[in-house]
């Protein structure tokens, strides 16, 4: 009687070391990763370096000067504008003057949050040309 030859079992690669490496990598990425959802607003852009054409500046007329006080309140021609009506008022002005240029004169004691709120309101109103003035030595 001829017996069938037993098939030699194929060599099996050990997966244990692979799993170890993968687990270490997983823990590394879990620990080192940050999941902050952050946005940005431009402060200096290369396009700012180029001078605006004279025609567009003339069409925009006189710029609108907004003062940002230390307490975060916004003043226009000496009058305090309520925070909730700021965007609406700016929208009205931007509608009347489409290329309106807004200059923001902030107090050095105002904080970054107040400036961001003002920029948000201007952006909401559709004002594309907004510049922040830095007082000398401020």
């Amino acid at each position, binding site marked *: 009687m001829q017996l069938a030859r037993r098939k030699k*079992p*194929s060599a*099996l690669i050990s*997966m244990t070391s*692979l*799993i170890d490496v*993968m*687990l270490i*990598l*997983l823990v590394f*990425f*879990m620990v*080192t*990763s*940050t*999941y*902050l*959802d*952050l*946005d*940005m*607003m*431009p*402060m*200096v*852009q*290369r396009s*700012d*370096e180029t001078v605006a054409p004279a025609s567009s500046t003339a069409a925009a007329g006189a710029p609108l000067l907004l003062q*940002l006080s230390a307490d975060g309140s916004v003043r226009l021609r000496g009058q305090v504008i309520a925070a909730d009506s700021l965007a609406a008022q700016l929208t009205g002005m931007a509608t009347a003057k489409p290329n309106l240029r807004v200059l923001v004169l*902030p*107090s*050095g*004691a*105002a*904080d*970054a*949050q*107040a*400036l*961001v709120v003002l*920029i*948000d309101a201007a*952006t*909401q109103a559709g004002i594309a040309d907004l510049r*922040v003035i*830095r007082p000398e030595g*401020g």
Partner: protein
Amino acid sequence: MKLKPRRSLTMPDPLVSLIDVVFFLLVFFMLVGRMDATAPFDVAPPISILGEDLPTGGLTVSVGEDGRMALDGVELDKSELITKLAQLHENMPNLMVRINAHSSLRLSVLLPLVAEIEAAGIGDVVLVVTPNPI
């Protein structure tokens, strides 16, 4: 004659599914995670409702509430920071700088810093903000 039962050469089933899950988690964390140098002090960026997407790359300048500054996680004083940025700008002309400033930072610190970074030749400076959760 009693033969010994042959050992199974295949991996046990639960281990295979574990490897699959671990592998998916690994890929997920590699894709979603973002490694960034954190400032050696607390920084809570201002909240904005109309921020734009934060571009990747560039350098991060962190400024704490008390005016302490750090470049990519390394604390520096202002003159060192500007010198370092100017040196880096020479090698990378299109360098972008992200300013990660605390929301309570006074503008008397923030605005001169922006002006000095611009004066160092860097033409792309952005302020990091936190999107409004509402």
